[in-house]
C-alpha cells in the first residue's frame, strides 16, 4: 500500500481524472473531498460489505422451511439458561 502524508487543503491525483483533497482532519476523523467523473462509483468501503451481507440475508426468504429452522434456532438461543 502506498502511504502519503498530506495536510488539510492538500490533495492527491489518481490518474488523469480523480482528485482527492483532505478537507478537514481531527484525531479520529478525516473529511475528504473527491473530484471524479460522474460515472465512477465512489463507496465507503464498509458499504460494500454491508451490501453483500444484506443480499445474503434476503436469500432465506424464498424457503419457508429455512425460516422455521431459524425460528427454532432463535428460540433455543434466546432462552438458553447459560446465557
Amino acid at each position, binding site marked *: 500500500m502506498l502511504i502519503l502524508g498530506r495536510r488539510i487543503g492538500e490533495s492527491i491525483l489518481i490518474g488523469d481524472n480523480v482528485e482527492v483533497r483532505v478537507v478537514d482532519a481531527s484525531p479520529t476523523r478525516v473529511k475528504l473531498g473527491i473530484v471524479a467523473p460522474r460515472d465512477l462509483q465512489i463507496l465507503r468501503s464498509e458499504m460494500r460489505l*454491508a*451490501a453483500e451481507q444484506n443480499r445474503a*440475508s434476503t436469500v432465506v*426468504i424464498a424457503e419457508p422451511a*429455512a425460516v422455521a429452522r431459524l*425460528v427454532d*434456532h432463535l428460540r433455543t*438461543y*434466546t432462552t438458553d439458561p*447459560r446465557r
Partner: protein
Amino acid sequence: MALLETPQLGTVDYSEETIVEFAEGLPAFETQTRFVLVERTETAPILFLQSLDNAELCFLTVPVQAIQPDYELTSPIEDLRDLGIDATTQNEDMLCLAILTARADRPPTANLMAPVVIHRHTRRARQVIQTDSQYSFEHPLGAEGASSGC
C-alpha cells in the same frame, strides 16, 4: 388500512402511520425506502422487515437485545439526528434490530455491526454501519456461538 400481497408472508395489512421510512434505503437496496414491521406469533421473536416498494423483499430481524442483552450502539448521535434521535432520546423510543442471515450449510448469524435503527415516533430509520464497534457482521447464533461465550 392498506393491503400488500407478499410471497413470503401472504397478505400483509398495514396502516400509513406504521410505515418505516429509510430515506437512503439499505445498502444494496438503496431504492427501497418504505417498509413495515410484521410480527407473527408462530415466528416470534422474528420481526419481518417487509418492503412496500418490492413485495419480494423482506428481511428477517430480531431486536439486538434478544441476542446481546447489554448491546450498545457505538454510532455517534450526530449520525442519527435526522431520524429525530438526540442525546435526550430515551432507549425505549428507539428500536434497534439485527438483520439475520440463514444459510443451509452453517448456523444462522445476526448482523450486530450494522443494526437497523428505527425511531418509534418519527418512524424514520437507517441501517447504521459501526465499523469501529466490537460487533460482527456475522455474529453466530448457533449452539457453537452460544457456548463459545461461556
